[in-house]
């Protein structure tokens, strides 16, 4: 049998084709894929390199890339994978932060880019049926044209795909009011690791027949099934929104204000917090005018009817002022709102200017512990001598902890990695979770057991066995796999 895969190359990228899975692409496997996909099978080194990365910056080279256009082609790919024993790694837009779409054991990257149709939008029953490759924003815009609303809004919504959002259970800013991707998935069609095509869930508001396999698949990071179609819940689009930007002297005041807003029985549709580290970052690149002594900022948005938003914005402003806000700005027209959003939106682009490599974590703590966590992070940054920039979704206690490093200083990298471990331990100790919306992938795999415990891991592995007995789907993810973590 002729071995096609260039193992030496893959090994250089950190993959480990010779152990655990022992998968290697054979000539007959590629021939069979070629028969199935024609020129939609690509094996050139150039195309493989283009599917070797995601937003983590890590790279693993696949053996081949296929572009299916329907569920049948996905199903037959997985059947071939079972026959020839090669990994299949589903990939949407490759924009994840945890390595979910990286082919850490080589094999075939199955790109959903060409399954990108919105099949239908039901305006009476308020749901959409979509293929996995639809870009999140495309659905949001199409729904909007019909007066409907698909709420999930991960920061990557302009380019990430719904299939990837479902696989990672993407969150976003409006989660505080509207929840995350899982709250909008009514039903799925997915190809399991066995090559069987499973249909789960409902197209109705309720449904409790049997185990909730839909939720089982949401957030499973492509390790249990490959979503080929999804039924997504829509809402009527809110009429209007009001945005508020409040400046505080410190994290304590701001966190108190967050709790006060909730206590005032307002559920904002966004509640973003930026601490001093994030504000400094933006001010160095594209300064936003703000009162002297600002050490923390909150961006809040309320949506609904014009009556309700005016009333709620008033209560939000009151809560902020009651907790020492130095200044509160408010806007209800689009231009003014954009202006207020500028500070928050400038953070990510500005981060690049701080240091070339960011370890981007997305911990969640109980909302009441926000200030404690910020204090901890500030101390940690001093102790470990690495710059840490914090901002996040205060409403759900979700903090994006960005540890900024050069990537060329081995000692700094070690200190940063140790800091990540400390952040995770503290998070779990506070009763939080180590990933709010990015998923485990390879980057959090070493910490899985720390949060869910040995039995949790064992049950997950049993479930994996049941959906994907031959370990075809996205091997090396979620569960600890040294080769994958090394990258």
């Amino acid at each position, binding site marked *: 049998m002729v071995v096609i895969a260039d193992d030496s*190359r893959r090994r*250089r990228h950190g993959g480990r084709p010779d152990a655990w899975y022992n998968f290697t692409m054979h000539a007959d496997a590629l021939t069979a894929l070629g028969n199935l996909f024609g020129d939609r099978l*690509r094996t*050139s*080194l*150039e*195309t493989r*390199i*283009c*599917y*070797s*990365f*995601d*937003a983590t*910056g890590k*790279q693993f080279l696949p053996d081949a890339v296929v*572009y299916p256009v329907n569920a049948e082609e996905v199903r037959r790919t997985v059947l071939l994978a079972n026959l020839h024993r090669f990994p299949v790694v589903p990939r949407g*837009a*490759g*924009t994840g932060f945890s390595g979910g779409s990286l082919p850490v054991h080589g094999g075939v990257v199955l*790109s959903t*880019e*060409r399954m*990108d149709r919105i099949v239908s939008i039901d305006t009476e029953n308020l749901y959409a049926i979509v293929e996995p490759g639809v*870009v999140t*924003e495309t659905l949001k815009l199409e729904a909007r044209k019909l007066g409907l609303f698909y709420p999930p809004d991960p920061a*990557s919504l*302009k*380019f*990430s795909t719904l299939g990837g959002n479902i696989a990672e259970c993407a969150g976003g800013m409006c989660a505080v009011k509207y929840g995350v991707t899982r709250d909008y998935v009514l039903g799925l069609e997915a190809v399991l690791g066995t090559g069987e095509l499973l249909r789960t869930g409902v197209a109705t508001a309720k449904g409790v027949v049997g185990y909730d396999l839909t939720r089982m698949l949401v957030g499973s990071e492509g390790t249990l099934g490959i979503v080929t179609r999804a039924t997504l819940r829509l809402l009527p689009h809110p009429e209007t929104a009001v945005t508020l930007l409040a400046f505080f002297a410190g994290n304590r005041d701001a966190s108190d204000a967050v709790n006060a807003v909730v206590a005032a029985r307002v559920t904002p549709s966004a509640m973003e917090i930026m601490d001093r580290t994030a504000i400094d970052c933006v001010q160095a690149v594209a300064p936003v005018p703000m009162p002297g002594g600002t050490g923390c900022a909150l961006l809040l948005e309320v949506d609904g009817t014009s009556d309700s938003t005016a009333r709620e914005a008033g209560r939000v402003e009151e809560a902020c002022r009651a907790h020492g806000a130095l200044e509160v700005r408010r806007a209800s027209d689009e231009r003014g709102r954009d202006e207020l959003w500028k500070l928050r939106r400038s953070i*990510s*682009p500005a981060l*690049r200017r701080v240091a*070339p490599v960011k370890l981007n974590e997305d911990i969640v703590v109980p909302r009441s512990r926000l200030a404690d966590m910020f204090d901890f992070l500030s101390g940690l940054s001093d102790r470990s001598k690495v710059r840490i920039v914090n901002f996040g979704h205060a409403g759900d206690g979700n903090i994006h902890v960005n540890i900024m490093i050069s990537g060329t200083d081995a000692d700094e990298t070690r200190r940063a990695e140790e800091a990540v471990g400390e952040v995770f331990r503290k998070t779990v100790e506070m009763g939080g979770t180590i990933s709010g919306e990015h998923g485990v992938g390879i980057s959090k795999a070493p910490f899985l057991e720390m949060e869910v415990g040995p039995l949790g891991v064992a049950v997950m592995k049993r479930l994996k066995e049941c959906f994907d007995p031959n370990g075809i789907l996205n091997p090396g993810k979620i569960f600890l796999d040294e080769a994958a973590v090394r990258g």
Partner: protein
Amino acid sequence: MRDADLKALTGLCGKCGTCRTVCTLYPERKAEIAVARGKIALIDAAMSGEDGDAEGVQDALTDCLLCGRCERACPNQVLFEEIMMKGRADLAEEVGIPAWKRVLFGKVMPSPAAMGIARKAAAAGQRLLPGKIPTASGLHYRFPEGLGGEGRTVPKLPAKGFIESLGKGEAATGEVMLFVGCVFDHVFPEVGRAAYETVKASGKSVAVFRDAACCGLPAMVSGDRRSATECAEANVRRLRDVEPGGIVFPCGSCLLMFKRNVFSLIPKGAPMYDAAVFVANRAVDYASFILTSGVLDGLPEPPEGERVGEIGYHDPCHLSGTLGKGPEAREVLSRAVGPAFAEMAGADLCCGYGGTFNVRDYPTSARIGENKVTTAARGGTKVISTACSGCVLQMRDMVARTDPSLRVVHIAELVHQALFRKE
């Protein structure tokens, strides 16, 4: 390929995927290899030796329109066009440049005389082409099948170029220099003529830059850095010598070359750097010159009439996007043609030309281009005006293929009409 500068540029790419949303080519390819972050990964792989197949990488890099949308959208401000030019140039050193390009860029384009001879030869050859399509903006020939893609048409080449048509000593010296550009000299001399006469209407004395070499952009995007530098240096030297007060460019791509790309070929520290800065500081787009020199002042109100909203403006990627000169052209149009001008549907869609991309993959270039002109036509536009030679070439071909009743013009032609309207 080893290039520390290049590495510093590609290192800024965070692989976030923003480029996927704006790429002109992505909807055609639906593959990561089409977009900026994929190509950057390939350049990195070529630099590290991970991908030793220079030809394969070069081929992937060539599949790009260089429309610059990714660069403008990039949250990390990655200089993608610069990366592509450098990458293509470095790879060209390894795999070489096709013979026809070598002759064209190295021998023909730097020499005004050789370009004239080439046009005459091509014009003579054209008469043998069988299919003729009369379009609203001039006669087009059907290109023979098998020689450059399905359904391509080419404009009838003139017997005389614009510069050739000038009298001896005419427009030889002046305070303002007009850089006509190859296409508006040799292919569409009527545009060169319209630009010349309207610039002259400013009352300033105008010199036409006669011994212009090609601006060098075609060579540069093909990775032929040597020919591109040769062109750039020749132009900068000759322009610096005559010390013009301003240099007007009817073509946005030529302007980009002198405003920005030239500094990649003649960087800080190079002997000609100061001369290049001198030229760049005086280089101005046609529309800006027309506005600031008062050409349109005192023009009678354009006639109202049945043509309200029929004239649109197509944004050339380099001129409106990279150089930010979209508003100026629109201002010129509203003053020259009044209510006949209206914002065009899909005004900022790329025309799909991409210079050598159009030669490399005509079918794709034509799909993007046909979508461009049909989108405009569906929105009610009957005359598409623009200010870049590549866009005029491409869109005239596209309307010849789809709807020959649509006109494609340079804004100078409309300004000319307005200034010299027969009462």
